[in-house]
């Protein structure tokens, strides 16, 4: 028995040293993003002028994302500086929003946690969901050849997925340039059906009788809205994630979501009937 113990003692000691060393090294900070923010004492948040209820433009109720970011900044001991940029969401290509690392530490108010977004940013999901939804007067899908209005937002959902689905079903696509045009064509009957982003619904005034429906779940999964951070800012991301985790455990995140009515905002009637 003693000989067996001796035989494995040296290898066990060697392995234990290696494991302890690697474990200790895994706690090294991989970058200076958090340290830099702590040095300046400011956390910069970039948001569009309005994206209700995430950003409302109302100083008393500034929006879910802004209040959440303020709580995160407070937890990190930083002052939140909100940069409202009208360029956000103006174009489907985020490059044209011209958001730079110098302007923003976090981008919020309409960022979806999708593969498309994660190609450019690191994301921290918030409790709010988004995805493509159908808008129409009836839960039944229209016949082939019908016109479908599409109001694509800029949160980072896959537009090719929608265009492929519309093409496969033989519908004519009518791209809407604005929320007003989108609701207008639905109201007038110029389009028998509409497709838009769930996260943009709160900004729409739907005509009477028009309801929101879920698109087939197999093809159109729901995604979480998110805070977008620059790729490579690992230490800042970990700190923000930890702060949000604390808010979640304390129930503050749920209270904030309730106050902004995000449950009602996520409502849709039923899945569309083929």
């Amino acid at each position, binding site marked *: 028995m003693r000989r067996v113990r001796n035989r494995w003692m*040296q290898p066990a000691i060697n392995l234990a040293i*290696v494991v302890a060393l690697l474990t200790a*090294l895994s706690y090294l900070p*991989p970058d200076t993003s958090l340290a830099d923010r702590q040095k300046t004492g400011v956390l910069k948040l970039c948001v569009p002028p309005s994206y209700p209820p995430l950003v409302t433009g109302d100083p008393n109720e500034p929006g879910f994302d802004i209040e959440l970011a303020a709580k995160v900044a407070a937890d990190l001991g930083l002052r939140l500086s909100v940069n409202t940029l009208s360029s956000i969401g103006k174009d489907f290509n985020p490059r044209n929003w011209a*958001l730079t690392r110098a302007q923003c530490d976090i981008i919020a108010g309409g960022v979806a946690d999708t593969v498309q977004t994660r*190609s450019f940013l690191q994301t921290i999901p918030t409790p709010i969901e988004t995805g493509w939804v159908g808008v129409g007067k009836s839960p039944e899908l229209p016949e082939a050849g019908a016109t479908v209005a599409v109001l694509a937002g800029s949160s980072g959902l896959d537009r090719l997925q929608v265009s492929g689905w519309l093409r496969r079903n033989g519908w004519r696509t009518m791209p809407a340039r604005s929320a007003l045009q989108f609701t207008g064509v639905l109201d007038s009957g110029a389009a028998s059906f509409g497709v838009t982003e769930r996260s943009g619904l709160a900004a729409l005034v739907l005509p009477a009788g028009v309801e929101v429906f879920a698109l087939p779940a197999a093809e159109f999964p729901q995604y979480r809205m998110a805070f977008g951070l620059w*790729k490579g800012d690992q230490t800042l991301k*970990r700190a923000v994630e930890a702060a949000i985790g604390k808010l979640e455990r304390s129930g503050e995140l749920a209270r904030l979501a309730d106050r902004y009515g995000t449950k009602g905002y996520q409502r849709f009637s039923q899945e569309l009937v083929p």
Partner: protein
Amino acid sequence: MNRTMMALRGLYGVWLREITRATRDRAQLIGGISRPLIWLLILGVGLNPYFRGEVYGEVRFVIPFTYLQFLFPAVIVLNIMYTSIQFAVSVIWDREFGFLREVLVSPMPRWLILFGKVLGGATVATLHGALVLILARFADVTLSLEQVALALALMFTLAFGLTSFGVILAARVRSFEGFGVFSNTVILPLYFTSSSIFPLDPALTRAQQAVTYPEWLVFLVQINPITYAVDALRGVLINFNQFTPGWGIGIIVAMAVGFFLIAIIDFARQ
């Protein structure tokens, strides 16, 4: 004691010898940790600023992960490659110092002796690959138990194939010095052309990829079996595949079976 039990005891003895030798050798363990430290902590962190975004919508590295996360599975494969292929040194050692001759005259079938040696080498290589998993926190890779189990299974199968490959190399190289040079000329080109440190965008066609990289490099990456091993591990660890997910697993299993069969033939000639 029946013959099966005797064979199993022999197999265990050969396996245990490899494990004991490897775990007592501090130099091997230092090699096992120096590679992940150099590649993840120094190269990964050093190059990170060049792959991060400065303007939203503008990155050179269009994959839904950070550079460290992308590099992480490749470093595991690198650690396995080095340990597995360097295992051939143990075969050359045994041959040079007569131990192999003593084992070969035992009643154990030759293929079983080889199986024990390859199992031992593969176990050590998997251990070296698993050491990198400890750095998952540093690379911001979140792992579930299921992911770790699946990754270990893939790592072991890959290690088995590469250890057999090491035995094939050992049969063709007669000296330690020769093998040292030869193994580096095999390992490093295989590693660098396995899409380990740069991505081939899965959304792009071959013609489009050739705009980013010269066509000869795309060709080398696509014919390199290690590319698919790295891809399979990326699929398990960070849920990202550049190629059809089944290919990686298929190629890893094919390498394990194919190289082991060739190694049996080579070993039988010794």
